């Protein structure tokens, strides 16, 4: 049996699945139920000076009948008294000594940081997460992403926290920056034991087209919120990998952003995350989703012969490269499996309108029979993947490499050494 336990910056947990700092980790009763369900850790909903929230607080994007592929919120940090939170953290830790309880924090002054860190550790926190990410409400008060967007402030507050803490400190980074690297390096310089990313993305989730007010609506007004959910995963993966592959960045990463199942979690770990945090999918489906996450990860590790998470964490990082290093002579063409093709012709219309006009209805071909299986004009196919993406039948369309006789040659090689490039396709 593979070992699913993890160590993220010195914070240990029986598996890499943590609740992110958010409504599902708002109270002791919730976190304890999550641990009972199988979650390996939880980052407590951010503590600070308790705030007052609005109603409503959440908004979502539905797509073609699928609910909430993207989600946003305008909820702030904890609205519960600090002493209640600390009491519940204490009780939770007592009941679940081997699970990771990380306490998310957001205050303003050094004195406040010093005090809240002490109280958190006294309550039994296994680690701290500094919330430098929240892009709504708190940033207007000079906290959250207002800190995360300023590397100097980030570094300074991180160094305070590290100084006052006896447990590992993670810095939660905001994606609302043009390049994540300087911010990750600032946390590292401040002495952080690790970073977690991404926090939510500044967003307006939707507009009520009858009331002429954005959503979520609070009376007659709305405000920008933090975007999350399945749809943000690509942004999170990029920022994660940007740090993971940097030679200058050397501390562990807890991955966050659009993780809904074990596959997503594996992708995050392959790009360098040593734990993963989930909020939105739990908000939508409940703590119970962790059963499949654990089982799916376990089966995946067995199928690949991984004994420990260390063997897979970061394994895809070396394959994340620059465009200039890609092999321009690598050529693929689309092949349609006529046995499984259902004749919907979605590939035809996508290729015609959105790609290179190289997939044609069979009836337009001289060799036509009564079939609706489209014909790929291989001499024109650029191997772009669009047909495979729109095809509703799994594995019906595959992109098959072809041997064109050209040796591998990247753009960078071509610029420096004059490597020979194959003739362009579809460029007339």
């Amino acid at each position, binding site marked *: 049996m593979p070992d699913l336990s993890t160590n993220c910056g010195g914070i240990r947990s029986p598996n890499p699945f943590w609740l992110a700092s958010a409504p599902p980790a708002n109270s002791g009763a919730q976190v304890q139920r999550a641990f009972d369900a199988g979650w390996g850790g939880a980052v407590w909903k951010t503590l600070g000076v308790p705030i007052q929230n609005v109603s409503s607080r959440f908004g979502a994007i539905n797509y073609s*009948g*699928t609910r909430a592929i993207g989600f946003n919120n305008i909820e702030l940090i904890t609205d519960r008294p600090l002493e209640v939170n600390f009491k519940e953290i204490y009780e939770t830790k007592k009941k679940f000594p081997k699970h990771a309880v990380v306490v998310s924090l957001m205050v303003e002054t050094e004195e406040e940081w010093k005090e809240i860190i002490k109280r958190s550790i006294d309550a039994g926190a296994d680690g701290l997460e500094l919330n430098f990410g929240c892009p709504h409400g708190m940033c207007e008060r000079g906290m959250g992403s207002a800190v995360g967007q300023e590397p100097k402030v980030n570094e300074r507050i991180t160094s305070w926290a590290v100084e006052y803490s006896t447990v590992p400190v993670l810095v939660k980074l905001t994606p609302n920056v043009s390049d994540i690297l300087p911010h990750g390096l600032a946390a590292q310089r401040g002495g952080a034991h690790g970073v977690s990313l991404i926090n939510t993305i500044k967003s307006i989730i939707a507009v009520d087209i009858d009331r002429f007010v954005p959503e979520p609506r609070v009376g007659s007004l709305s405000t920008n919120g933090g975007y999350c959910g399945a749809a943000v995963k690509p942004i999170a993966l990029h920022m994660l990998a940007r740090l993971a592959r940097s030679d200058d960045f050397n501390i562990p990463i807890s991955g966050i952003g659009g993780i809904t199942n074990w596959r997503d979690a594996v992708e995050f770990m392959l790009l360098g995350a040593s734990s993963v945090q989930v909020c939105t999918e739990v908000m939508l489906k409940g703590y119970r989703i962790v059963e499949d996450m654990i089982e799916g990860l376990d089966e995946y590790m067995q199928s690949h012969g991984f004994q420990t998470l260390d063997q897979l964490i970061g394994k895809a990082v070396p394959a994340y490269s620059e465009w200039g290093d890609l092999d321009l002579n690598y050529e693929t063409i689309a092949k349609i499996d006529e046995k499984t093709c*259902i*004749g*919907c*012709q*979605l590939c*035809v219309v996508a290729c015609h309108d959105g790609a290179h006009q190289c997939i044609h209805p069979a009836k337009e071909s001289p060799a036509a029979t009564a079939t609706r299986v489209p014909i790929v004009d291989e001499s024109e196919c650029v191997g772009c993947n669009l047909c495979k993406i729109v095809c*509703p039948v799994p594995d019906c369309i595959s992109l098959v490499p072809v041997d064109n006789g050209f040796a591998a040659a990247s753009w960078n090689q071509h610029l420096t050494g004059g490597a020979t490039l194959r003739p362009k396709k579809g460029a007339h």
Partner: protein
Amino acid sequence: MSKPIPTDRSESVFEDYKHEYDAKQALIEANRCLYCSDAPCTQACPTHIDVPEFIRKIATGNLKGSARTIFEANILGMSCARVCPVEVLCVGDCVYNQMGVPPIQIGKLQRHATDRAYEQGWRFFEAGAPTGKSVGLIGAGPASLAAAHELRRLGHACTVYEKRPVIGGLNTTGIAPYKMRADRSVQEAQWVLAIGGVQLETGVEVGKDITLAELEKKHDAVFVGVGLGPDTRLGVPGEDLPGVHGAVELIERLKLGKLELSGVKSALVVGGGNTAIDGVRELAGLGVPSVTLAYRGAEAQMPGYRHEWLAAREAGVAGAFHAVPIGFEGNARVERVRLVRTDAQKKPIAGSEFTLDAQLVLIAIGQSTLGQMLSGLSGIGVQNGSVVTDDVGATGRKGWFAGGDCRNGGKEVVNAAAEGKAAAQAIHRHLGGKDA
């Protein structure tokens, strides 16, 4: 004007066999549609409704646009949504079938969109600028309605001659009530004619109350949409006994009035086509305790739709196959049917006679044709009783067009709608109009 039909009718006891979608069910089903390109469902539809487009519009909440897409192709989209054999047309060709996934319920979605249009009073089409031309249409069934609507959009004045007091043709008098009841068909006919400029002459039989020559003189073009004639009879002894009816004739009575069925313990329907299957399902639904369909061939050879026959089976109907009546017996009315077994070639086997009790018999072996009513007009060809036309409905006589059952020998409402519309466009060209 169309005479109102009675509110208390035998057919009123029937519920819809296919339940109606509510908004949330429609949304879920609409979102399953793959939005195929050059979609097989659209190709399968005789009126070529852009099915993926109307379904996408349901999914986006553009219900009015969805109804517009349907009616643009087929003005009878409301009734077609209910009565089309979608299993062998659009739904049967849904690509999901190729995947072993349940096909999109196109009929139910079409009903959802078109019913909203009727409910909300949405209208999409206006009469065209008057051309000064006049077209006479014989029959007020689906073919003529579709033709008249299209002709009005193109600006031609229309007069519809209907021998019955009610309009809608077989859609009103012949549709199985668990698919659509007569009032709905009359409502549709009125909705279609509400485009305006159609003079309706009910109770006027062409050839009797007005001659073909008069019609030709009065109008610049004529569309013939008279459908089919009375039920074909077997021609066996006792067929004139009370209780032995033509199926279409009896179905019309249960559609438009009250049918007296007390004392009918067993009923026999003769035939293997869709009218026969409708007949047995209707009699079973009206509470006749024992209903049997007798067909001269094997069960698998029945020309009626298999899905319809399976539904009849589910309703408890019995089948007597390789059996054909040779006589009806009884005193004041039919009491027994004498039948004979048939062989693989559907030929009677000597000595194989048997009898079945039946107090009611429906003969559903086909309908006579009406093409011969045009035989006095030179140039119009009639073949097997059907009016001969070109692809778009033009007969061999200048200005005379035909569509629907009298042209195609008896098909679906949707075929009549398609032929009526195509003929209207051909009439428009004949009258000097440009392609619509």
